[in-house]
């Protein structure tokens, strides 16, 4: 059983095809990076797989559950950390965690919250209002919140965007700790991040997935010097 299985997944916005018949099979515990240039269809794909928008056609199965029939069951077991930090600005960090625990009706919420405080080292900002935190802290809190329901599938949409190098490395460490335990779909513009963290990488061009493989496989296939060159070669159809 796959964690995520899509068949001919398509999304059209009026005349524009944003996602064009994607077939995707992602294993349980896998960290799958979805790469592509701006407008390639990564975020639209994630929004469909996370149940935020409906596909125009095609099917999505999450742990063998159908997205159309079991959408609320599926929503219990996944979580998303969106591109922008998604936290309640006038609530403290602790209140944000408590609020999200309430959204997922977590039974032993204090235990889970303390676990996340420890994992993300949130002690020093716990009683500060979210809007007063730096961008790095806000992103950290936003990602911590996305783990509140122990998701089986986690979508990280450009999680390290705008973070300094230390904050980025800290987050990589946490993501590495999560690897194997939960299925993670990662989108990023940092090639080094995709190469270092992911088990497999899918490259999207104009709404279609044109290549899937490990970073080594993609480098070998394009005969590139490094992964960044391999990505550029695939994304431009060998023009660059």
């Amino acid at each position: 059983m796959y964690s995520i299985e899509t068949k001919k997944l398509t999304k059209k916005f009026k005349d524009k095809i944003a996602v064009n018949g994607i077939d995707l099979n992602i294993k349980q515990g896998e960290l799958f990076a979805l790469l592509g240039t701006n407008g390639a269809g990564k975020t639209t794909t994630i929004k469909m797989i996370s149940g935020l928008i409906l596909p125009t056609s095609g099917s999505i199965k999450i742990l063998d559950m159908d997205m159309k029939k079991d959408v609320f069951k599926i929503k219990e077991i996944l979580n998303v950390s969106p591109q922008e930090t998604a936290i309640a600005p006038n609530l403290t960090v602790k209140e944000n965690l408590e609020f999200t625990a309430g959204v997922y009706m977590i039974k032993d919420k204090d235990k889970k919250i303390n676990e996340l405080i420890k994992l993300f080292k949130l002690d020093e900002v716990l009683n500060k209002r979210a809007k007063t935190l730096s961008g790095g802290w806000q992103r950290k809190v936003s990602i911590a919140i996305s783990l509140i329901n122990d998701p089986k599938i986690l979508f990280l949409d450009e999680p390290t965007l705008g973070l300094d190098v230390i904050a980025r490395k800290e987050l990589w460490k946490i993501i590495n700790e999560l690897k194997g335990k939960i299925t993670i779909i990662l989108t990023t513009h940092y090639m080094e991040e995709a190469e270092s963290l992911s088990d497999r990488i899918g490259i999207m061009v104009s709404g279609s997935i044109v290549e899937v493989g490990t970073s080594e496989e993609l480098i070998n296939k394009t005969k590139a010097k490094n992964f960044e060159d391999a990505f550029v070669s695939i994304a431009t159809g060998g023009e660059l």
Partner: protein
Amino acid sequence: MRMINFAKRNFKELIRDPLSLVFEIVLPLFLLFIFQQFDIPADNYRLENFTPSIILFGFSFITLFSATLISKDRTSSFLIRLGTSPMKSSDYILGYIISLIPIVLIQNILFFLTAIIMGLEFSISIISTILVSIIISIFFISLGILIGSLVSEKGTGGLGSIIVQLVCFTSGMYFPKEVIGGVFEVICKSLPFEACLNIIQGTLHNDFSNLTLIHIIVFLIYFIAVILLSIIVFKKRMVSDNK
């Protein structure tokens, strides 16, 4: 449970915004106090008439700030995150409405306490007025949800201000519509704010002679239409904003 959890969050967001408290509570209280310092020879400014007007004036800011909250939530990634959670549309809509009821209650209690200190006679009808006001406030909150679902955060300021002005000038709060007459009188009759004021004043005075069948029909049409529209538009927006 999810609805209450969401309402708690919304209440905290609203109560921690000092500007919202100033306009929803302090400004109406100031107007209630200041207008009683002058001996204005008009029935509208008598304490038993002006206190209900101030309640309605406070509600117009409830519309403004609920619209701002919803618009902010929509334009941030906050609702995207919640959109992937098991929360249902009813949790959102009722969560927004329930979060504002305590603020409406605080407004009413403070306005009546101030009015009593200034000479309004305490009667049991004050309690029934508060209860009726809460029902009317649902119309103003729904109007806020509708505006917040339709326009951006900048737009909510403009539209919210129009609602505040409409409440001030078409409800009969400051002057009776007959003073201007003509088209203005027709506009006042077509909008729900005069009906709202007459219902609140009638409940406080225990005298509904100013409340006509037209008032009740106009209020009910707006009340039902705005609630239904706010639900439909909010649900549609939740989907289209995420595209």
